């Protein structure tokens, strides 16, 4: 039955995206991804090395860092960095045609995207480290990092005390990101934008925490959505902090893009999330009348229910609608054409990449 789910997701999604013209053709996709890997490798050797320092840079590139994820992280670092960079540059380009801070936006968002990926990975694969991490990094610390330099120094001190490389690397990224944000906000006089960003970061942290502790059914879908789509709003807000203008349409665009990737992630992850009892939007939709974490003996019924019903198709419909809404916004002549084209390609390529 898991095979049937896996096939139905792929066939349904590819067919729908082909029909709506959002499916990237193979050769174009392959060329685009090769180019993105090259950019990602440059980001890795440049900004990531700077953020982590030599020792931890070598460690994150080694085969033992975050080794429980096997090669999931190590092989994807260039693409993770590149994806964050492209989103940051594109959002920035839509808001500010001067291009003055495009590179900076790209670099900060690249490292942020890697940080989010590592944060998720630690939660998923290193449960024994979660409590230790929560002791040095929690919502209160997040709130203070936004404005309090001494909080950054305290976190830096924890870095030297922390012998767990998986946590140390993550803390270094967090410290680096907040330092860059504070610098940028000060230079650009963007205190309001910084406050919005800080609020989004706290909301994202809260949703990640809630997603791990079996939220009540009525909240589960929103928690699932927030956890996956808020990072895109954070990237948009980071770009806004550096941009001279603040085009009103960019935030809704970021929400639509966030929803696209939320849904593609959950559609692709149905088999793994079933196995692990993880929060998944499509599974929640099926199990509307029962707890979304079920005992293994109920898995057959839950899978059968998923296949009998139309949850997969509803999720695909929703994904497609968000994709269309994003494309509609990007077609607005008032937006920078090059940035809009770039973002459309990024969306199409990475959706295809996530499908595998």
């Amino acid at each position, binding site marked *: 039955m898991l095979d049937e789910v896996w096939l139905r997701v792929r066939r349904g999604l590819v067919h729908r995206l082909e029909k709506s013209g959002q499916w990237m053709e193979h050769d174009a996709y392959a060329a685009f991804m090769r180019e993105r890997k090259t950019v990602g490798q440059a980001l890795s050797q440049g900004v990531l090395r700077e953020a982590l320092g030599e020792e931890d840079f070598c*460690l994150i*590139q080694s085969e033992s860092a975050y080794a429980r994820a096997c090669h999931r992280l190590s092989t994807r670092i260039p693409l993770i960095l590149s994806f964050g960079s492209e989103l940051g540059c594109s959002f920035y380009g839509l808001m500010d045609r001067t291009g003055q801070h495009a590179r900076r936006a790209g670099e900060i968002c690249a490292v942020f995207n890697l940080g989010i990926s590592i944060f998720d990975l630690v939660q998923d694969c290193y449960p024994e480290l979660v409590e230790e991490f929560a002791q040095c990094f929690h919502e209160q610390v997040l709130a203070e990092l936004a404005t309090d330099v001494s909080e950054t120094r305290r976190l830096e001190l924890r870095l030297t005390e922390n012998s767990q490389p998986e946590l140390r690397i993550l803390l270094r990224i967090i410290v680096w990101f907040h330092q860059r944000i504070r610098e940028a906000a000060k230079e650009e006089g963007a205190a309001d934008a910084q406050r919005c960003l800080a609020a989004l970061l706290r909301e994202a942290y809260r949703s990640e925490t809630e997603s791990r502790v079996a939220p009540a059914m009525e909240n589960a879908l929103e928690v699932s959505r927030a956890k996956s789509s808020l990072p895109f709003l954070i990237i948009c807000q980071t770009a806004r902090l550096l941009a001279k203008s603040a085009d009103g349409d960019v935030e809704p665009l970021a929400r639509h893009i966030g929803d696209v990737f939320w849904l593609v992630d959950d559609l692709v992850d149905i088999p793994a999330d079933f196995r692990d009892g993880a929060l998944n939007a499509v599974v929640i939709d099926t199990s509307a009348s029962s707890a979304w974490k079920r005992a293994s003996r109920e898995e057959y019924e839950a899978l059968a229910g998923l296949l009998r019903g139309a949850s997969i198709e509803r999720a695909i419909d929703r994904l497609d609608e968000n994709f269309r809404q994003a494309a509609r916004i990007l077609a607005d002549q008032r937006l920078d054409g090059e940035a809009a084209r770039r973002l459309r390609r990024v969306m199409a390529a990475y959706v295809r990449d996530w499908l595998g």
Partner: protein
Amino acid sequence: MWRDFDTLAGPSSEWVTGYVCYATRLIECAEFDRIGVLKTLLHRQRRTGGWGYNHAVPTDSDSTAWAVLALSTANIARPSVLYRARGYLVAHRQSSGGFATYSDDDGIERYIQANAGLTAGWRSSHPCVTAVVLQALMAVGEAASADLICGGARFLAERQDDSGGWRAYWWKGHAYSTYHALRFLAMAGALPESAASKACALLERTQAEDGSWSGDGSGGDVFATSHAVLALLLRPGVGGRAAAQRGAEWLLRNQEPGGRWPSAPMLRIPPPMAENPDPADSWRIDDRGTGVVVRDRAGIFTTAASLWALSVVDRMGLTGLAGTERRRAS
């Protein structure tokens, strides 16, 4: 598919292809249709859930583990493929916590026309197989806390020898087995600093002046050097990085003009009844049958190992590769 080695069973296709696909996962090459090769490998999965040395030889846990690792690099396998592969691998687990190459159900004795009692060696657990199987199991979702992962970690921890390395059954020297044992233990979060240091000290101690490692003390060997470099870079402290960098530079110097690396006899085929083949036994070189040590004649396996090591070195920015330059943000 790739084919290499020359044994009584012919060349290997499935096992070699699995290894090469996984070893080269960090390398981008427009001419190489990785997904196409993986799909071919996927379709070779047998009813047992496993893969074998080639299509004619019974399935075994080592070939299956390499196929699983290769498939884990792309999202093309249906859940049932990996589920069946997992079941096949778990069926090779022994009470020691280790994994045997062949189980009673594989029928290897029928294939080689021997009595079951004469295949004890091939049906025993060995570190060089166990470490790779456990990596494959983790690649398909086995949690670090699972019994078979913890049991496997104990099996390997108990078999680190006094020199700091792990002996291999199917391979000459200790580099391959040591690397994979360290890699799995790191994945499982079960690698104490003392064990890692001991292994790294062994590797640093046995490195030749020219930066190479040898499989048998007889001169630089690409396969051994590649795995020693990989092992040192699992714990990239300053000393290990320097030794790994010298090893990488030796690899670069020894690449042949055609692009491959020279192979040397490294794959051992012990007599099937031999459970603890002595490294000092006289092995026939590049011969057929058992009691032999053979090279990969096409150099594919050795070249893949070298590329694996060099791609990790390159990713860390430790040395420039011929034909590439260290990429930096401008």
